[in-house]
């Protein structure tokens, strides 16, 4: 439970912490998109360098990031293995039936691996340096145009921020209930699948009960404080655009130019051959 790094906020005052959350969100999505346009190893190395620079800038130690990758590493390796084994082309080093290990296979394995790792790293960077409340504000700001289509954007944003707000509480509570049931003799992580599923009941049920109770209390309190849905409301936290956000955009442009530069190099080289 405590090993999950992705989605946690790490308090700090770094450059990345102070960037506009809207920018961070859009930039992260853009970066992930960019990953799929890279055509050669140099491009990936270029992006890796950028990612490591960001990790450095975030003021969080590298080991925290790698701990965040660890729970997902088997999934990634599985995807990479599939890529390696079923992609043909170039020099073939080994083959057995439909399975083969080829030069292209190894390369595309490396690309898949890099994409996975960087997607995780980039999203971890965003969540580690952005408070969940800022993130919801950013999402809210970005989907605001949907209001024109009569979608209750504000209500959804509120729901999202409330649920994110209570994630840490829920984790705490899970820990408490698990401790309580452990003290009553439950041993987690033992027995076959069905036994393990059964052991979840004494945890999940109390959590449901307390969440429902809290939701009801929360709804009452909001009503008492005068919350009505569908009313135009202002916001206490105003997002402002700073010079540093402009700088960040320039960095992203440079990054993009770099990618296209490396893509073209490859093109030129191929052309010469």
């Amino acid at each position: 439970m405590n090993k999950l790094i992705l989605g946690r906020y790490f308090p700090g005052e770094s450059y990345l912490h102070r960037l506009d959350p809207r920018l961070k969100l859009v930039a992260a999505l853009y970066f992930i998109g960019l990953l799929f346009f890279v055509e050669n190893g140099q491009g990936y190395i270029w992006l890796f360098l950028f990612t490591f620079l960001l990790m450095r800038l975030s003021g969080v130690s590298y080991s925290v990031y790698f701990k965040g990758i660890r729970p997902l590493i088997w999934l990634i390796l599985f995807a990479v293995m599939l890529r390696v084994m079923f992609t043909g082309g170039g020099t073939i080093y080994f083959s057995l039936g439909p399975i083969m290990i080829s030069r292209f296979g190894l390369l595309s394995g490396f690309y898949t691996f890099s994409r996975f790792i960087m997607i995780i790293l980039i999203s971890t960077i965003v969540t580690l340096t952005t408070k969940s409340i800022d993130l919801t504000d950013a999402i809210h700001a970005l989907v605001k145009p949907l209001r024109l289509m009569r979608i209750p954007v504000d209500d959804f944003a509120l729901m999202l921020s409330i649920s994110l707000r209570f994630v840490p509480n829920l984790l705490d509570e899970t820990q408490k209930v698990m401790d309580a049931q452990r003290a009553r003799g439950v041993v987690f992580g033992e027995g076959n699948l069905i036994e393990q599923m059964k052991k979840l009941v004494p945890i999940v049920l109390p959590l449901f009960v307390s969440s429902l109770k809290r939701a009801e209390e929360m709804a009452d309190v909001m009503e008492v404080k005068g919350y009505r849905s569908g009313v135009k409301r202002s916001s206490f936290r105003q997002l402002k655009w700073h010079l540093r956000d402009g700088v960040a955009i320039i960095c992203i442009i440079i990054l993009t130019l770099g990618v296209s530069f490396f893509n073209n190099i490859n093109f030129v080289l191929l052309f010469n051959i």
Partner: protein
Amino acid sequence: MQVRFEHVRADYQLGPIRTANVINDISAELPTGTFTAIIGHTGAGKSSLLKLINGLLLPTAGEVHVGGLMINVKGEKQILNQVRKRVGMVFQFPEAQLFAETVEQDIAFGPINFGFTPEQTKQAVRESLDKVGLSADLLERSPFSLSGGQQRRVAIAGIMATSPDVLVLDEPGAGLDPEGRKKILSMLKCWHNEHKATTLLVTHDMDDVATYADNVLVLDHGRVASYQSVRQFFSDEDRLSELAIDMPEPLRVQRRIEQEKGIKLSQVSLTRSELAANLIKEQLL
């Protein structure tokens, strides 16, 4: 069953954030059958100390001995299971752990996990329900249909049903009305006396300390600031103010009377009846 801490240290790891030395080199011995109150300000490490006793929190250094069993940094599963069987732990707001369809099933959860036979379980359920003062016709009810106070009793019954040798209580009266609180505590005290169970009680209420405990252990920033008998502890006025700890109500009244009358009673009064007796002895009443 004796509980002994030997140079225990522990810390919490919550995601990437590590809180160092929540428990900082604690050594203490709680003899068999004693009732020890654990007090200290918020964040002093009280709950962590309780969790160390049944291995929910493992020490980073040192050893915790429960009876003949020893928990250290390794935390071997086999030993932890045996320890948990011997230690009953009532968490804060224990009603939050109720989950079963009926009261009976919920109380039986612990005994079944610890390998009681069906007959033993049935008997244990009935006995412990009786102990907490609930009637047997609640057995078939859903625990969620009960009142808050009843839920708390059911939760406590679920822990007593395994008849532990060590009873660990983390503010068992929190959030109850004064009457319910008193009932729960005197019931736990009663159980302690009958079973000679080594009992630890975390509380913020000095009247509870004075009424129920034999010894008092004060924690401060993860260290033992004081560990002595309740009477000795409350006698030392200077130390109390140094640790910023209140006096129990009867003692406060006594001090006030002493101040007004310019006298000193020979003994500190921990309960109202003691205070009355002391005052009569000094012929002030």
